[in-house]
């Protein structure tokens, strides 16, 4: 019995040894430190011009401010032999792109020297940014541009499409891929009717309680209003730089390709 136990232990040790060797052989590439101050566009090798970089950053920041969905771009020279999926998954999880709980982060990782791109999306975006969508995006939008070294154009178009696709999930509750205005109208309508309903219910509650009067519903509305504002404020500060990654988690969804 004891002998068996020992054999088991040795086996386990050997397995561990093999694992550590595999890890060394594959030499997992080190994850760069989170950008400080926080940025969404992280072009470590200056493939984009300063203007292009700033334009993308402000576009992504505006999107993150209004929807809380964080789209981050990382451009590096090489994967140093690491697997593109493994590395970008680790990078996204380490940086915690997206908001905690919502997991609405998305990473576009590019290794210029390896001519490889990966789109990784957080759990919260799996419904809208399907693997098939990411794959098509890479095949039909990114590759043709990147082949001509039009990196900015490729990223510009790709991020626009991602935003359109993802917007169904957090802003308009999927009222269709187009028609932001209509969606906005419907959601305001829903929110408004919700407030009115609350108002009526609160009033009724007061009536039953028997201590009705002018002050009745006001405190309730007060707290409701302030709660609404405070949840709005964790969507990031409205001015200045990007507020930072929020603790999103990734399940491995996405697609990759090389151009």
């Amino acid at each position: 019995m004891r002998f068996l136990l020992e054999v088991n232990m040795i086996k386990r040790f050997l397995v561990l040894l093999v694992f550590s060797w595999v890890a060394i052989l594959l030499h997992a590439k080190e994850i760069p430190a989170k950008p400080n101050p926080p940025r969404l566009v992280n072009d470590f090798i200056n493939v984009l011009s300063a203007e292009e970089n700033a334009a993308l950053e402000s576009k992504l920041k505006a999107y993150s401010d209004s929807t809380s969905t964080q789209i981050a771009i990382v451009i590096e020279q090489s994967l140093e032999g690491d697997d593109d999926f493994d590395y970008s998954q680790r990078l996204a999880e380490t940086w915690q792109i997206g908001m905690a709980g919502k997991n609405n982060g998305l990473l576009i990782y590019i290794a210029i020297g390896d001519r490889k791109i990966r789109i990784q999306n957080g759990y919260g975006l799996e419904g809208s940014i399907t693997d098939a969508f990411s794959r098509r995006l890479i095949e039909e939008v990114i590759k043709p541009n990147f082949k001509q070294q039009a990196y900015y154009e490729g990223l510009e178009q790709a991020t626009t499409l991602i935003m359109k696709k993802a917007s169904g999930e957090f802003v308009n509750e999927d009222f269709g891929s187009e028609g932001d205005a209509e969606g906005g109208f419907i959601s305001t309508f829903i929110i408004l009717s919700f407030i009115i309903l609350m108002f009526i219910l609160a009033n009724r509650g007061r009536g039953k309680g028997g201590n009705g009067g002018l002050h009745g519903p006001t405190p309730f509305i007060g707290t409701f209003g302030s709660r609404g504002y405070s949840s709005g404020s964790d969507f990031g500060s409205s001015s200045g730089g990007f507020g930072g990654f929020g603790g999103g988690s990734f399940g491995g969804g996405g697609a990759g390709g090389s151009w």
Partner: protein
Amino acid sequence: MKRSNIILLVIGAVLLLLVFNGCGSYNSMVNKQEATSSAWAQVENVYQRRVDLIPNLVNTVKGVANFEQKTLTDVINARASATQMKVDASKLSPDQLQKFQASQGELSQALGRLMVVAEQYPQLKATQNFLELQSQLEGTENRIAVERGKFNDVVKDYNSYIRKFPQILYAGMFGFDKKGYFEAEKGAEKAPEVKF
């Protein structure tokens, strides 16, 4: 104060400490066990996702003239046996996990062969439907790898916690047993053979 009194006091204090400690350990063990269950739910989710993809994949491939039948039936059979394999989420014992992994592993291999064979049919590769299925399948395999990794991390945390002192004193008493890990897939290190 008499010496015996002091001794009694010390014993009392130690006992009290043990009880408090036991409560704390117990609660932590419950939390960690819950974490393994929820990680397991995620694992089952992604495996289910793969299982759900297969009928669509099989139908797409079936439509192609004279597609190799054996690889198809292999996938269908492996899927059937994989869906029958259920794991008790509250136990997650090592041998249960090993069986689960074995049946899912067979499905992985059958699917791998199917995709390799499919590469030889240009008319299939040209269809949008197949391309999408292929990317979904790839994404699902990636998700499986991620969730397995996360599950292993949580189980490692739990297993090492219950085996440490003083939790080890209470773990057996309250039925907190060691849980199984996913191990590297047998044959995963070698890519499926391609014959022309």
